[in-house]
């Protein structure tokens, strides 16, 4: 059986790279990404000529170079006989690049595949940036006219969760403290200075009840993950991670279900995880750590409950009690998560895959999860209307 494996990776620290239109010297996406590709292929220990597919997350609309994947094939003079393509799907954009890269291996079309993502947006002010995001989350004619913002849906999740489970806001806020501690140990993280619960609670409100440290910061980033067939991975005589299971579910709703349901159940995550655990032949108890796409504190809580990592109604308390912290029973978001490692949205899922691989190959340094054997990677779109889960396993040569 030829399972797909991660054999190499490279990423920029999440930060601010995008230059304004009037800059004397611009930072351009293809220059950044080309260096990362070379680094990633070197870290994998394979040759340029081994690569036969490029799956690229579609960059932001601010990226001037269009048809970016085919432009990158040119820029790197990479001839490919598998496929060269871009993926798009809101928050899942780079997760689809990862997933389609795996498919190239599973279909036998390629032995080595590049999954690429770059997200540049920070020179565009938030109020301008959000003009476009109005169109992404919700019905453009029946929701957007009311002024819903992408994270306003998560804020409403938080209000409902606190109401139903009698959870104080301080418990939700503790997720931000926990993730900042993780980020302090991650050289790729955008925000690394440790913070206290008081620091989180005193920030200005963005969407009630969530303050500045409980919502995603704006960030630029780029990440490359090299995927190969397991026979190639084995031949390299070094640790790698293999994709052992996958699950996907779209609940057939966009932000809200027009038939009232429990919005905070995250049905897509529940269903995708059931599929992924079965597909991998594992149970939730076998998972050693998880890297979860969670733009806000509440989202990590609801997502980890939905896939069974924490108990229903207890997810926020689990962060407070150290259960989901490094060294706890089930560390979640060891990278620092979206609130602290940073969130360049169309690249974030590849950063998540990068972190899972770092942990499984024992390359996570100070934030290493002891004896990490099985890692869960989950990405999403909308208000967790769709979830895509991969379960990866550590393999030794």
């Amino acid at each position, binding site marked *: 059986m030829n399972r797909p494996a991660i054999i190499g990776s490279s990423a920029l620290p999440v930060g601010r790279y995008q230059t304004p239109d009037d800059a004397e010297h611009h930072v351009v996406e293809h220059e950044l990404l080309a260096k990362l590709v070379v680094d990633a292929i070197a870290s994998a220990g394979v040759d340029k000529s081994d690569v036969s597919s490029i799956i690229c997350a579609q960059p932001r609309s601010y990226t001037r170079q269009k048809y970016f994947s085919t432009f990158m094939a040119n820029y790197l003079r990479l001839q490919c006989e598998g496929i060269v393509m871009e993926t798009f799907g809101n928050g899942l954009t780079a997760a689809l690049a990862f997933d389609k890269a795996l498919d190239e291996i599973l279909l036998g079309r390629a032995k080595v595949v590049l999954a690429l993502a770059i997200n540049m947006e920070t020179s565009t002010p*938030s*109020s*301008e940036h*959000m*003009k476009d*995001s*109005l169109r992404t989350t*919700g*019905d*453009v*004619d*029946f*929701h*957007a*006219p*009311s*002024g*819903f*913002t992408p994270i*306003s849906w998560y*804020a*409403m*999740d*938080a*209000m*409902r969760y606190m*109401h139903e489970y009698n959870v104080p806001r301080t418990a939700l806020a503790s997720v931000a403290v926990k993730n900042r501690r993780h980020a302090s140990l991650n050289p790729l993280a955008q925000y690394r200075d440790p913070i206290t619960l008081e620091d989180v609670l005193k920030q*200005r*409100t*963005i*969407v*009630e*009840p969530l303050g500045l440290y409980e919502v995603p910061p704006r960030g630029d980033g780029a990440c490359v993950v090299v995927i190969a067939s397991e026979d190639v991975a084995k031949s390299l005589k070094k640790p790698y991670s293999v994709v052992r299971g996958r699950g996907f579910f779209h609940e057939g709703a966009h*932000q*809200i*279900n*027009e*038939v*009232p349901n429990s*919005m905070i159940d995250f049905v897509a995550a529940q269903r995708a995880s059931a599929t992924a655990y079965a597909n991998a032949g594992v149970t939730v108890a076998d998972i050693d750590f998880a890297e979860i796409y969670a733009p806000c504190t509440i989202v990590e809580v609801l997502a980890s409950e939905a896939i069974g990592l924490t108990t229903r109604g207890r997810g926020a308390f689990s962060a407070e009690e150290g259960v989901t912290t490094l060294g706890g029973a089930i560390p979640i978001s060891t990278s620092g998560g979206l609130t602290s490692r940073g969130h360049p949205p169309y690249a974030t899922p590849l950063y998540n895959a990068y972190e899972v691989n770092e942990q499984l190959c024992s390359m996570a340094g100070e934030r290493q999860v002891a004896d990490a054997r099985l890692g869960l990677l989950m990405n999403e779109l909308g208000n967790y209307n769709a979830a895509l889960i991969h379960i990866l396993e550590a393999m030794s040569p």
Partner: protein
Amino acid sequence: MKCFPTAGVRPYPPRVTSFTAKFWQSLQHGQLVTTRCGACNALTFPPKPVCPHCWADKQEWTTISPNGVLYSYTRIHAAPAQFSQALPYEVGIVDLKENLRVACRLVNTSKETLRLDADVELVAIQYEDGPLLAAIPLQIRRSTDIKFLTDISDMLYMKS
């Protein structure tokens, strides 16, 4: 349903199609309508020319009750440029008694009335360029309609 004229135009106006025109025109006249499937009887919102449940194309227009409960809400303090003048403003999710979920602006709220699971009703805010749905708490201070109008204008425009 209640209608509240207000000054100004909608910050991000919806597109009207030849199909949804019936909804928007009705809303302009203070009537809440949507589609019901002639095959499976399911209501749907927003109105659609095809039933999303059974995919039949036997949709019929029907008037529905504007009454429901507030499933959740938030107050937005950072918004797209089009909405920055209205900041902060409240949006919510309303579960109608007819078993439909609607997301819209909340207006004329107060600390006492803005509660999850509280009774709310959908109303039409009549802007100069057309209507939008909004929700108001049912247990509100009963004052004059004029007072209402002023309150809603305050909610929509006069905060800064």
